[in-house]
């Protein structure tokens, strides 16, 4: 039951590939049966292979582990090499599913059922793969203690801390699924990436890269003890570029709404998130890999994340998701390194400032080349302050991460306050970005022009008048956006002066499209619906688009997230968010514990180059 979508624009061609007559309940039940079967097979496989390996009756895992010590896993024992490989493959799978899924939701809206959306499969497989990789790392070490940082399971069974954390990250991500259902049940479906439970799904995957860094450290330490076959330096560098490039991707997935051109939050969040991701991942990459490490890490980012965009848009035929110009931030880091790489925390700080200023300028220019919603002077100077905040927080975290996996973390009295300050800076930046106001007493008049198409494919241009005329001074965006009608249509309106704007093309006004004027200026974000379809699933009525009309600007969420239930008590939302926040803090603190543990228990690694 899956729709073939052709391209953003109102002339989307829709084909229904399979029978449409299945009742929704029956479809959901069928999906539950499929999912249960797959889950049972996966669980049984994991348990049988794991138990068989530990009892010595099944040698498959041992053979796979031995084989993975070659190639990218070079210089690490199988218990670190195999899980690293499984994780990287799983993460790429989940990433592909995630961007595919977001694209489908933008162009189609809600799902018919949990597995009706084909893109949910790679997400599930990927997230379960991360958990599986962690379990493999826990199960594999047999007859040896995998380093001094290992965690005791039984009297003669120790698991690498990185493996435990990897399984924990996967667990946290998968925990997002049931919590997501509970969330939707209470609050209605939030058609945004930034629902708290959605953030768990992607955050768990993104942060698993930190666990991989810990596991890499433990694996390398184990091999330096018993001096196995020497690893070629370039193999180690490529592996580390894959891990830090993966971290860059993982920290960048929060930008996805911006990548597609339908952000539902303030534009200043985008430079903040870009700088945070770049600061953390690229500072760690430059320190961990050596000269050129930050650039190499961005090359990996571009290959994988750019590749996912190419596959989603080019091969699958969905929407295009742009990427930030991370090479500029990598250059900022590389340029600061010769003078400061020997003092990692100062290096992180200076790199963060440089990313937040020079990097911001580069991204500002880049946004005008590729982004559907290029940055405007409206985000100055706040965007720079946000970018510096994100860059410095990220740079400090990246430096701490590196120091941890090198066994050189400063004493807790120094490391803990720095870690806390970085987290507080992130919280402050996110909170500031979330302080949104709704324009009051602003009205928008729309006069349709150039109306065309039959009743089923109606489309039109428009002349849009905002009153009072000065309600939107220097906007971040004034667009007509249409989505969920088998495509995405984002039209940045041309200002004619005096609060009057015109379209540059025809917008869709029929079928399942949801078409609206979007206004964002400073802290205010508002919307005016132009056309909305009937939605019996949530009891919403059709809003037609007459030739001329005037409507008040309203809270954008009421339009973009019609599914949100109204009248849910605020404290319920606070309580539910607190639960998600606690789970997230638990994961972040667990990862910090792991980094500190390898730092304190494993010998100092003597392989830095600057």
């Amino acid at each position, binding site marked *: 039951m899956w729709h073939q979508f052709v391209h953003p624009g109102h002339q989307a061609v829709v084909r229904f590939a399979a029978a449409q007559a299945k009742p929704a309940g029956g479809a959901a039940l069928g999906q539950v049966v499929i999912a249960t079967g797959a889950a049972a097979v996966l669980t049984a496989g*994991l348990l049988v292979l794991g138990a068989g390996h530990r009892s010595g009756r099944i040698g498959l895992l041992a053979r796979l582990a031995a084989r993975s010590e070659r190639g990218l896993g070079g210089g690490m024992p199988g218990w670190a090499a195999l899980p690293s490989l499984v994780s990287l493959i799983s993460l790429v799978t989940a990433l592909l599913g995630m961007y595919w899924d977001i694209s489908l939701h933008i162009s189609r809206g809600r799902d018919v059922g949990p597995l009706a959306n084909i893109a949910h499969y790679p997400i599930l497989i990927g997230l379960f793969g991360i958990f599986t990789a962690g*379990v493999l790392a826990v199960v594999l070490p047999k007859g040896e203690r995998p380093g001094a940082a290992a965690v005791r399971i*039984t*009297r003669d069974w120790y698991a690498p801390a990185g493996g435990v954390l990897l399984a924990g990250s996967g667990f946290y991500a998968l925990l997002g699924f049931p919590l997501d259902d509970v969330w939707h049940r209470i609050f209605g479906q939030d058609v945004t990436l930034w629902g708290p439970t959605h953030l768990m799904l992607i955050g768990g995957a993104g942060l698993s890269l930190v666990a991989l860094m810990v596991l890499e450290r433990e694996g390398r330490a184990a091999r330096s003890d018993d001096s196995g076959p020497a690893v070629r330096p370039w193999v180690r560098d490529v592996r580390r570029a894959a891990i830090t490039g993966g971290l860059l991707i993982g920290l960048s997935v929060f930008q996805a709404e911006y990548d597609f051109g339908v952000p539902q939050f303030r534009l200043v969040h985008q430079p903040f998130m870009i700088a945070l991701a770049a600061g953390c991942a690229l500072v760690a990459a430059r320190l961990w890999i050596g000269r050129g490490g930050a650039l190499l890490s961005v090359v990996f980012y571009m290959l994988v994340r750019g590749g996912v965009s190419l596959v989603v848009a080019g091969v699958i035929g969905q929407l295009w998701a742009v990427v930030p110009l991370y090479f500029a931030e990598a250059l900022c880091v590389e340029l600061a390194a010769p003078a400061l790489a020997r003092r990692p925390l100062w290096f992180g700080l200076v790199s963060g400032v440089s990313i937040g200023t020079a990097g911001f300028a580069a991204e500002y220019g880049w946004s005008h080349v590729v982004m559907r919603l290029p940055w405007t002077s409206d985000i100055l100077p706040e965007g720079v302050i946000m970018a510096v905040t994100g860059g410095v927080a990220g740079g400090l975290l990246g430096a701490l991460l590196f120091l941890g996996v090198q066994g050189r973390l400063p004493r807790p009295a120094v490391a803990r306050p720095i870690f806390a300050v970085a987290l507080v800076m992130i919280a402050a930046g996110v909170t500031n970005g979330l302080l949104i106001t709704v324009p009051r007493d602003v009205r928008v008049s729309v006069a349709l022009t150039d109306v065309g198409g039959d009743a089923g494919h109606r489309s039109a241009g428009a002349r849009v008048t905002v009153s009072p005329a000065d309600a939107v001074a220097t906007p971040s965006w004034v667009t007509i956006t249409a989505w969920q009608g088998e495509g995405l249509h984002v039209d940045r309106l041309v200002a004619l002066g005096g609060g009057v704007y015109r379209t540059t093309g025809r917008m869709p006004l029929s079928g399942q499209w949801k078409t609206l004027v979007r206004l964002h200026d400073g802290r205010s974000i508002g919307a005016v619906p132009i056309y909305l379809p009937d939605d019996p699933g949530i009891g919403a009525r059709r809003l037609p688009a007459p030739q001329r009309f005037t409507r008040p600007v309203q809270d954008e969420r009421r339009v973009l997230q019609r599914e949100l239930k109204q009248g849910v008590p605020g404290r319920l939302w606070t309580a539910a968010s607190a639960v998600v926040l606690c789970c997230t803090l638990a994961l972040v603190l667990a990862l910090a514990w792991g980094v500190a543990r390898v730092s304190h228990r494993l010998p100092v690694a003597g392989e830095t180059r600057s």
Partner: protein
Amino acid sequence: MSTAPLASHSAVTAIPFFLPTIVVIAVIVVVVWRDRRRHPAEDEESTEEPGS
């Protein structure tokens, strides 16, 4: 109503996605518990690492 998008999924549909992790963790917990019962003397996590 044939294929109207669901406004909310039934919570039961999420269980299979999550259950495998619970089962695997439960099995490991049982192994740990049995080990601790068999060797109560070495209960505390060893912190005296050689070479740390």
